[in-house]
């Protein structure tokens, strides 16, 4: 009917156009064409309005399901009124280029206008005369396009695999309507008679609801990661009952297994069973995480890991039977021949949405799911890390490996703390932070066994400090920030760093009060308590260490995200080389020294107390040996930072040499201002009292001093730094992959610097290539 409707509508319009008297200000052709276009607009309006323009989603669905035949063959007709004359009269008042506007509809709003019949904007223009509108669920049933009963194993496998592909495409950030809900079976699973298909589709719908909740509660999602909003009308059509999904899937599995025992050929049916079982275990894990996010009391986390193992075991069997299901037709956007209508939601999408989305293919979708399960397993390990230092390290490492998967990041956040008020679901965050400082550098005032901990004044100060830490939200935010995608992390770290200053002040005040109390106790003659409180820098050091850590991550992430131009490398590497890494090493060294001093003091005290007993002596003599093993817990990290220091120094000197040698492209000076660039790059550090900001003038002085050396000398100095880094890295026992990569970078750059120092390519000054493929922060310098 649609093809015949258009000509019928067009002919009267043409006649009307030619017969209407032209207004004086318009040419006949213009008027006729405008009338024809107007008539076409009328037709489009009928279609558009009837389909989705003015009606809410419920009415739309009612209209669609009212009559299957009607849905396919024609669209509602309404009593339109011809306003061509009025329109022309109104237009006659406008000058060329003049626009009518309303308080609520100005130039900005006009940008959202859709030009009717524009082939790129008007989605209705996607249909040609041979292309019927995409069928809805009810229409497809009426025409026999989809089956509701007696599906073959091949058909089930095909639909299952296609749905997993849609699920993966959705998790990658595509619109739910354009991937998952192109499956007509998901529109009304209750109407499906085939039990295996019905329970699977119900599981998918429930999985959608549960996953959305996990991502929403974790709150590490941004618009580029995942679209939380979709066709809620379709999703709400059948109420989600996640608690019953598991048993439904299990029942169907058991039923099919019993059925297999009666058949001679069971491979296809077992393939169906494997997919159902995989879905059941995947659903169980995700539902369990969602329950943790909601209730914050579930604590049997061990089950999650075991369930994940079972899900992993299903995947090889599934992969081996991918070809047993129905396969997508060539040239079609549908991921399966039956049950999918790729353009069903074209009209309900905002016009700016992509016209089509390529749904992931089946093998890579299962690959994605396998990797996601691996990430979930890895995330389960977060429960082992009971203090802030180790937990933060875990989150930083996890972010490097799982940065692209929003669900993996959300699951980790949920496993650690659903609401950032309780750590691991049991421990109040304030207690968690207290415990963390104690583990980090063991201040006596946090040791319950130490008499100083009983002092009411001490307890009051501690309570105030940790409550302040919680209120400022800085430490918890640092962990949450690790859950965002890598680009957003950098933005949020900038704001986090600015917040550290107030906490630094509070920590310094706390340490100062401890010293004051130490003096008071000393005057009272209470030597043990005075000693415990003396020279306290525990809290300042803890806060500063975390602040320096955030600063280093922020600064170096600019390389990972490719934000720095080559001519900026100089001051970006200079700052960590000259200041930041040294600060980190100082903080850790100070912490180690504090721990050592406390160990010695405890040892001294125990000897004094046990002086009178020979048996006691023998028993306690064994302790010093054990203590020595843990005397330097941060040695490995300090050594690593020494390597980073040398690498930054090498890059700084290398960039100085390359710049002086004329091998670095500099921007034209017309608009460029290096001082402004420098200040902007270090802007997040500007508000900190410690470390103090370093002005552009200071940097300029340092650079000018360095640049007095000859180019050859600068290359040689850079080579020495890289060689020093190599020495440090080679001294590390049991190096991990990152250290091995850095070692290769140090070796290669050492060679390159020496080659340049000897006058390689003196005549041709070309900018080297900086290859960051080995490490995010440090490149291999390649000459062209």
């Amino acid at each position, binding site marked *: 009917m649609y093809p015949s409707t258009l000509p019928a509508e067009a002919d009267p319009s043409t006649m009307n156009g030619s017969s209407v008297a032209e207004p004086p200000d318009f040419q006949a052709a213009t008027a006729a064409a*405008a009338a024809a276009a107007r008539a076409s607009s009328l037709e489009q309006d009928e279609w558009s309005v009837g389909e989705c323009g003015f009606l809410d989603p419920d009415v739309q669905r009612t209209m669609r399901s009212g009559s299957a035949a009607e849905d396919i063959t024609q669209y509602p007709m309404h009593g339109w009124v011809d306003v061509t004359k009025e329109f022309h009269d109104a237009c006659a008042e406008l000058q060329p*280029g003049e626009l009518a506007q309303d308080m609520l509809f100005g130039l900005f709003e006009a940008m959202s206008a859709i030009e009717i019949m524009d082939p790129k904007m008007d989605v209705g223009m996607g249909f040609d005369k041979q292309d019927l509108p995409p069928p809805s669920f009810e229409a497809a049933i009426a025409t026999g396009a989809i089956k509701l009963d007696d599906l073959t194993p091949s058909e089930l496998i095909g639909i299952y695999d296609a749905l997993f592909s849609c699920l993966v495409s959705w998790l990658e950030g595509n619109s739910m309507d354009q991937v998952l809900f192109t499956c007509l079976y998901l529109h009304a699973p209750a109407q499906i008679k085939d039990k295996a298909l019905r329970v699977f589709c119900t599981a998918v719908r429930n999985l959608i609801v549960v996953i959305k909740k996990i991502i929403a509660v974790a709150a590490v999602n941004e618009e580029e990661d995942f679209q939380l909003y979709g066709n809620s009308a379709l999703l709400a059509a059948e109420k989600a009952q996640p608690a019953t999904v598991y048993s439904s899937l299990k029942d169907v599995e058991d039923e099919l297994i019993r059925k297999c025992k009666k058949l001679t050929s069971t491979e296809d049916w077992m393939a169906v069973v494997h997919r159902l079982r995989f879905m059941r275990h995947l659903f169980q894990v995700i539902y369990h995480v969602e329950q943790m996010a909601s209730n914050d009391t579930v604590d049997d986390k061990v089950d999650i890991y075991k369930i994940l193992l079972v899900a992993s075991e299903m995947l090889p069997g599934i992969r081996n039977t991918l070809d047993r299901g129905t396969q997508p037709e060539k040239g079609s956007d549908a991921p399966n021949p039956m049950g999918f209508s790729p353009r069903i939601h074209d009209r309900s999408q905002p016009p700016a949405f992509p016209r089509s989305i390529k749904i992931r293919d089946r093998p890579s979708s299962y690959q994605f799911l396998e990797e996601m399960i691996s990430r979930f397993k890895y995330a389960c390990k977060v429960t082992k890390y009971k203090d802030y230092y180790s937990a933060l390290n875990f989150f930083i490492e996890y972010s490097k490996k799982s940065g692209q998967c929003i669900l993996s990041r959300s699951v980790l956040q949920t496993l650690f703390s659903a609401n950032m008020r309780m750590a691991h679901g049991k421990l109040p965050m304030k207690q968690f932070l207290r415990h963390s400082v104690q583990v980090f550098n063991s201040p006596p005032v946090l040791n319950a066994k130490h008499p100083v901990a009983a002092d009411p004044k001490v307890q009051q100060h501690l309570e105030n400090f940790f409550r302040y830490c919680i209120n400022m939200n800085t430490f918890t935010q640092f962990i949450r920030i690790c859950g965002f995608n890598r*680009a957003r992390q*950098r933005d949020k770290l900038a704001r986090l760093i600015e917040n550290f200053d107030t906490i630094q002040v509070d920590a310094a005040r706390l340490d100062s009060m401890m010293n004051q109390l130490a003096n008071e106790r000393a005057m009272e003659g209470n030597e043990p308590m005075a000693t415990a409180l003396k020279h306290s820098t525990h809290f300042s050091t803890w806060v500063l260490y975390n602040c320096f850590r955030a600063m280093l991550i922020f600064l170096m992430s600019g390389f990972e995200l490719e*934000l720095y131009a080559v001519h900026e490398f100089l001051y970006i590497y200079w700052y960590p080389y000259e200041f930041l890494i040294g600060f980190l090493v100082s903080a850790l060294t100070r912490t180690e020294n504090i721990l050592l001093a406390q160990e010695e003091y405890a040892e001294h005290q125990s000897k004094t107390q046990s002086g009178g007993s020979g048996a006691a002596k023998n028993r306690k003599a064994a302790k010093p040996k054990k203590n020595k093993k843990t005397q330097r817990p941060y040695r490995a990290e300090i050594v690593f930072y020494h390597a980073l220091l040398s690498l930054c120094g090498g890059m700084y000197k290398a960039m100085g040499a390359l710049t002086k040698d004329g091998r670095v492209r500099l*921007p034209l000076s017309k*608009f460029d201002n290096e001082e402004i660039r420098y200040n902007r790059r270090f802007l997040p550090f500007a508000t900190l009292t410690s470390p103090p900001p370093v002005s552009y003038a200071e940097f300029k002085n340092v650079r000018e001093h360095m640049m007095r050396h000859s180019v050859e000398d600068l290359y040689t100095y850079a080579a020495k730094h890289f060689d020093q880094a190599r020495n440090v890295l080679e001294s590390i026992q049991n190096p991990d992959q990152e250290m091995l990569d850095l070692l290769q970078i140090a070796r290669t750059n050492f060679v390159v610097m020496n080659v340049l120092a000897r006058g390689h390519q003196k005549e041709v000054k070309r900018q080297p290539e900086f290859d960051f493929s080995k490490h995010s922060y440090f490149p291999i310098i390649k000459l062209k």
Partner: protein
Amino acid sequence: MADAQAAAAGKKKYKNKKNSAEKNPNHNPNSSGQVEAQTPSNGHVQHQEEEATEDQEPAQELRGLLKKMHLCNGHGHKEQEARPLGEVVNGHAHGHSNNNHIRCTSGSSNNNNSTHNNNSVDSSNNNRKQRREGGDGGGSDSNSLKPEEKPITATSKTTANIHPTTTTDPKPKVSEDVAVEQGVHVATGSGHSREQERKQPPSDYAEGATPTITAQLQLPEPAISADEIVYKEYEAEHQMHDIMRLIQAELSEPYSIYTYRYFIYNWPKLCFLASHDNQYVGAIVCKLDMHMNVRRGYIAMLAVRKEYRKLKIGTTLVTKAIEAMLADNADEVVLETEMRNQPALRLYENLGFVRDKRLFRYYLNGVDALRLKLWFR
């Protein structure tokens, strides 16, 4: 020294602006808006035809001359490169052949980046549309109002579309209408008479001068130099469709005419056009607005025709736009471009822009973007 040169260049540019401004008053009183709208289109069509003719004849008859032209073209390139060298740190007025080659490549890239950049900017705008649509969804009352407005908008565009397709057939009808109108409205008839008079001289001129035009145009066409590119500000509505046509030719995403109107009507002084032989070959469209207490300039569209690369048109357009924004007290200039659009990145970074943020999956095709910034304070 460089500053002095820049100042001199600025002065020259200012003079150009004055000339352009002077032309405006003379041009406007001569004709009505409608006539203005029609004339450029006709000229454009004729010019295209002439170009086609030129392309054929030289190939057949003047192969030797082509070789000379090529050499001349090379000479022109050297002259062009000499000036940038003055600004660039290298300072070599005459380099080795390798250097020449490198510079040519760089020039090509610079122009190429303009083209690529447009796609990026377009995608960026399209992405913003998506977000606005999301916002629109929130207000049901607003939605109920907008559909009523849209038909008017669409029809207006439709009318605009009809004009370019006018051919010889309607002319008799026009004459008839004019005849009818004359009996009723003398003033209207007078207007139409002027239109007819305008149409005749160009035809005579073209016919009579064909040999001359061919002979003259053969020489400059292959040896276009940067000097022949004329830069000017946006003036009036009659340029709108030329701008749209130019930008749409280089982009793949649909831009409603109202997107152009939004930027150009609000910030007409931040729209610059590059033309050659009365054809527009490049355009830049910007805005300047308060954004979180910062006076932020934004480069929305930049397009340069593919046939006019290597002439620094993109760089010049961006430079003029930045100067205009600076004159209007901008604190910074911002734009987004695709992560892998190397030519665009090179153009902007050469002017001092730095990459401020990386925007994951910014464009609808899933590609990352970079937000580039040039800070002035």
